[in-house]
């Protein structure tokens, strides 16, 4: 894949990942978010954050299993979109549901375990977003950067648990997310067992 194609592929991912946000914004502007628009927006952005987290975690297994090394380019974009949707999810909750009240937001969070789990997932994504640039990867060094970015697993697990905990009764959807996440994490566990990396053999561009 040449530079031109790669640039094009990057644009493709960048643009398409923004589409749900644009549609949501458009529908909100035209009062097309149904009977409970705030709730609809919160649910939608939360779901999108989870979808993008899982897509981010899908890149490496797909790359290894398919041999399409070039798809690694999409991991950062997808990860940043996961953070974007999770942050949007929280901001809508804070502004439109809690009416910008810090006191009410904090008191809800302290009392509701599922909110604590959710905010944990969002907060661990902050250092990941901050260190997502090439300069930061260089500054941290590949090994430390990779270790730090394993926090993505924590974010995904927290996100799925957060979703599961707030569903009233029909847990089929959160369980589907959990199943996909289990496969993606299980693959990594299996890969480490199968190919123990010799000490000091930091492979370029590696990282599970």
């Amino acid at each position, binding site marked *: 894949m040449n530079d*031109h194609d790669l640039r*094009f592929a990057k*644009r*493709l991912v960048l*643009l*398409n990942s923004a*589409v*749900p946000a*644009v*549609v949501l914004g458009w*529908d909100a502007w035209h009062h*097309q*978010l*149904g*009977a*409970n*628009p*705030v*709730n*609809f927006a919160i649910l*939608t952005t939360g*779901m999108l954050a989870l979808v993008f987290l899982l897509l981010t975690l899908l890149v490496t297994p797909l790359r290894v299993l398919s041999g399409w090394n070039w798809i690694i380019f999409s991991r950062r974009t997808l990860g940043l979109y996961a953070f974007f949707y999770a942050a949007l999810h929280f901001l809508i909750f804070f502004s*439109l*549901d809690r*009416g910008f009240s810090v006191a009410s937001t904090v008191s*809800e969070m302290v*009392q*509701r*375990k*599922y909110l604590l789990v959710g905010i944990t997932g969002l907060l661990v994504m902050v250092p990941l977003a901050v260190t997502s640039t090439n300069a930061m990867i260089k500054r941290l060094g590949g090994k430390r950067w990779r270790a730090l970015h394993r926090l993505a697993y924590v974010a995904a697990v927290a996100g799925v648990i957060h979703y599961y*905990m*707030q569903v*009233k*009764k*029909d847990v*089929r959807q959160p369980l589907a997310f959990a199943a996909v996440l289990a496969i993606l994490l299980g693959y990594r566990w299996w890969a480490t067992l199968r190919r123990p990396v010799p000490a000091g053999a930091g492979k370029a561009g590696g990282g599970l």
Partner: protein
Amino acid sequence: MQEPDKISQREITDPAVYFNRRQFLQTGILAASAVATGVVYHELNHPAAGVTKTVPLAGLTTTPTNADNGFHAAEPATSFQDITHYNNFYEFSTDKEGVAAAAAGFNTRGWQVSVEGLVRHPRVFSLAELLSLSPPEERIYRMRCVETWSMVIPWAGYSLSKLLDVVEPLEGARYVAFESLLDPQRMPGQRADVLNWPYVEGLRLDEAMHPLTLLASGIYGQALPPQDGAPLRLVVPWKYGFKGIKSIVKIKLVAEQPRTTWSEAGPNEYGFYANVNPHVDHPRWSQATEQRIGQSGRRPTLMFNGYEAQVGHLYAGLDLRANF
């Protein structure tokens, strides 16, 4: 095969044209992919839309209201569109925005309701017989869902007590048990074990006899649409919405507290009483405030959903925290 050098210089596309064409093509693909993503996304995740067909309810009367009986909440009613497109009715779908579409065309022909148990005159009513017991009255009630959203709904129906007076509860009757239709053919949500079907609910006899407790057959002067519990449902305005059992086929007077679907599904989250109470939180969320559908911002939830003056006496001496 042609030798490369046989291509004349004139045939080679000018690089400027070539890259323009490439750029043009890529822009086209980008735009097309964005549209495709938008269509797929919207298909997977969209709020409820569509119009619900209505049938006017015959003989609707307006009951004389006074400030004390709570029959007419002095608040703007939620729109018909929202009342019919934001429903908790797991028999059709667990997606509140998907119930209207899933329930469209629900067939209620030949509907019967068996009123039985500890009554002097047990009887199977046809829907027409049941509705003819008393003319439908318009009652504008607040409706508070346990999920912290609320509506104001202009119901049509009559007090359940009128039916109970006809069948005459016997001495030992202390509770009323209700049952919804069980028919996975007509109610596709029942094909999944999300809840223990059929849906069952119950009230204490004094709660059932309270004039606010409504046997509803309509909203906005129209026959109940399928998604709102056609053809006949219960409305108990001071309790969380899930007490308002829909599509009723059986009403049984009993001596012991009957089982109820949600209290069995989550014993520490949903109680038999389920009175609206801002001071007793759901284990997973606060019940102090609510989102009124159609309005922005949250409002405080009222004790007994604002019907404390009418029903507070029913619970004198009862520990509402233990009996949630």
